[in-house]
C-alpha cells in the first residue's frame, strides 16, 4: 500500500483513494448495518425532506432513504465488481493468447471484437437484456460480455509488444514454459495499462448498471440498485421533492469520481 502511494504520488490518486475508501466503507457497513430496515415502511413519516431522524429524508412509503441508498449502492457495486471480473478476466485471457500467439485465432477473435466494438456496447446490452428480461445475474452476464472486447484489445496490444522484447527471448532460452512466460514474465508488465483500464471499466459498469436499471431492464422490480432508485426518484422531482434524486445522483457521482480519479492517478506517471 505504501509502495502504491510512492509510485503514484499525485493528487488525482490521493483524492480518488480517499473518496473510494470512504464510499466503499460506507457500502460495506451498509451491508451489515443500516440505521433503519431499508424495507420498513412508516406511515407517519411519508415523503419527508432531510431531518435529524432521516438524514436523506424518506420516500412515499416512509422508508429511510439513507438506508435504501446504502443497500442500493451495495447492489450496484457488487454487480459492477462481477461485471469487471468477467470482462477483465476473459478479456485478459483472450488478449494474452491472441497477442502472444497471433495467427488465425488472433484474426478471428479480433474480427469478432471489432464487430462487437462497432456496435455501441450499452445499446447492445440493452437489446440483449430486453430479450432476456431483468435480473441481477442477467445484468452481470450481459454487461460482462460486452465489456470483454475493450479489455481484450488493450491486453492483446501489450502482449504483442512485449513478446518481442529481449527479456522474453531470454526466458525462452532459459527453458521457461510458455504458460509461465505469459503469467509471470509478461502479465506483471501490463499492469500499468490494465489497472487504469479496470478502474475505468468499473466506472462504466456502475454507469451501465444504473442506465439499465433506470430504463427498467436492469435489476428486477423487487431488487434495489442505484439505477432503479434514480428511476423511482423521477416521480418525486415532478412533485417538487428533489432530495431523492439529489442524494441518489450524488452517490453515483461520488462512486464514479473516486474510481475515475484513481484510474487517472495511476495513468499519470506511465
Amino acid at each position, binding site marked *: 500500500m505504501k509502495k502504491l502511494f510512492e509510485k503514484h504520488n499525485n493528487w488525482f490518486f490521493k483524492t480518488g483513494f480517499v473518496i473510494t475508501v470512504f464510499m466503499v466503507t460506507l457500502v460495506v457497513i451498509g451491508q451489515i448495518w443500516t440505521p433503519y430496515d431499508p424495507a420498513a415502511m412508516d406511515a407517519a413519516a411519508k415523503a419527508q425532506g432531510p431531518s435529524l431522524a432521516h438524514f436523506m429524508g424518506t420516500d412515499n412509503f416512509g422508508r429511510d432513504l439513507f438506508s435504501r441508498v446504502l443497500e442500493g449502492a451495495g447492489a450496484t457495486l457488487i454487480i459492477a465488481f462481477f461485471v469487471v471480473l468477467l470482462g477483465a478476466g476473459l478479456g485478459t485471457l483472450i488478449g494474452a493468447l491472441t497477442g502472444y500467439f497471433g495467427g488465425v485465432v488472433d484474426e478471428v477473435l479480433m474480427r469478432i471484437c471489432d464487430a462487437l466494438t462497432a456496435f455501441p456496447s450499452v445499446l447492445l446490452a440493452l437489446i440483449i437484456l430486453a430479450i432476456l428480461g431483468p435480473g441481477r445475474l442477467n445484468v452481470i452476464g450481459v454487461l460482462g460480455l460486452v465489456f470483454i472486447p475493450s479489455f481484450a484489445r488493450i491486453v492483446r496490444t501489450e502482449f504483442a509488444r512485449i513478446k518481442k522484447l529481449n527479456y522474453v527471448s531470454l526466458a525462452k*532460452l532459459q527453458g521457461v514454459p510458455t504458460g509461465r512466460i505469459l503469467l509471470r514474465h509478461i502479465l506483471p508488465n501490463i499492469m500499468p495499462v490494465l489497472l487504469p483500464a479496470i478502474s475505468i471499466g468499473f466506472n462504466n459498469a456502475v454507469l451501465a448498471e444504473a442506465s439499465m436499471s433506470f430504463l427498467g431492464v436492469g435489476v428486477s422490480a423487487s431488487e434495489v440498485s442505484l439505477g432503479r432508485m434514480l428511476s423511482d426518484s423521477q416521480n418525486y422531482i415532478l412533485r417538487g421533492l428533489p432530495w431523492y434524486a439529489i442524494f441518489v445522483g450524488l452517490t453515483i457521482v461520488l462512486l464514479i469520481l473516486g474510481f475515475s480519479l484513481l484510474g487517472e492517478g495511476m495513468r499519470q506517471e506511465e
Partner: protein
Amino acid sequence: MNDTPAKILEVRNVSTSYTRKSPLGKVKIQHVLHDVSFDLYEGEALGLVGESGSGKTTLARAILGFLPKYEGTIRHFSERPQVVFQDPYTALNPAKTVEWILGEPLRMLGIQDAQARRQKILDMLIKVGLDESYLSRKPSQLSGGQRQRISIAAALIMEPRFIVADEPVSALDVTIQAQILELLARMKEEFGLSYLFISHDMNVVYQLCDRVIVMRKGVVVEEGDIDQIFDAPRHPYTRELVEASK
C-alpha cells in the same frame, strides 16, 4: 587449448530470404543470409563483424533458435546457448527484482530451495563485479553498465559452454565498454566459454576475439585469425572496416 579442440557449433550453408512486393507488383527476393558456413570451437571467441543490415543479427537469431525458417543446417554440440543482448534496457524484466531475474533460470534448472538459489545468485553477482545490495533492485534502478553485468550473470548462471553476445557493448559509454569487455574476457577464462561475438566495431572485436568472420549483405567475405585480419585484410570491405576502427 589442446591440438584438436572440440566443435561447439557448426553452421552449414545457411541461407534465408524474404520476398518483397514492389508497388508495381514485381516480386523481389531479398537475401538476408546467403550460404553462410563456419565452425566455432571450444574455448574460442569468434567475432562476427559487419555493418548494420549485414545479416549478423539474423544469423544470431537463427543460431539461438528464434528464426522459424531458414535453409541449411545449424548443429549445436553443447547444451542450449545463452545470450547477452545489445540493449540492456529491454534485456531485463522491468517488473522484477535482480534476485527474481537471476533466480528464474535456477528455478528452471530445478533448484527449488530459495536459500540455495540465493547463494548461487550472490556468488554470481560477485563474479560480475556487483554485490548483495543489488538483490532487491529493479532494472530501472540500475545503470546501463550494471544492467549489462546482470545480463551476463543471467546468461552465466545457466552454466552454458557457449554464449552468443549480440553487440553487448555498443549501447554503453567507452569506459563502461572496456569494463564489460574485460568482464567477458575474464568469464571466458574462468568458465572455459566459447563466444560468438557480434559487433559492427572492429576495435571491440580485436580486444576480445581470436578469430573473425566478416559479413556483408548476408555473405561471408572474409574469415581468419584476428591478427591476420587486422594487419593484412584481403577484402576491400574488411580493409574499410579496419581503417574505420583505427
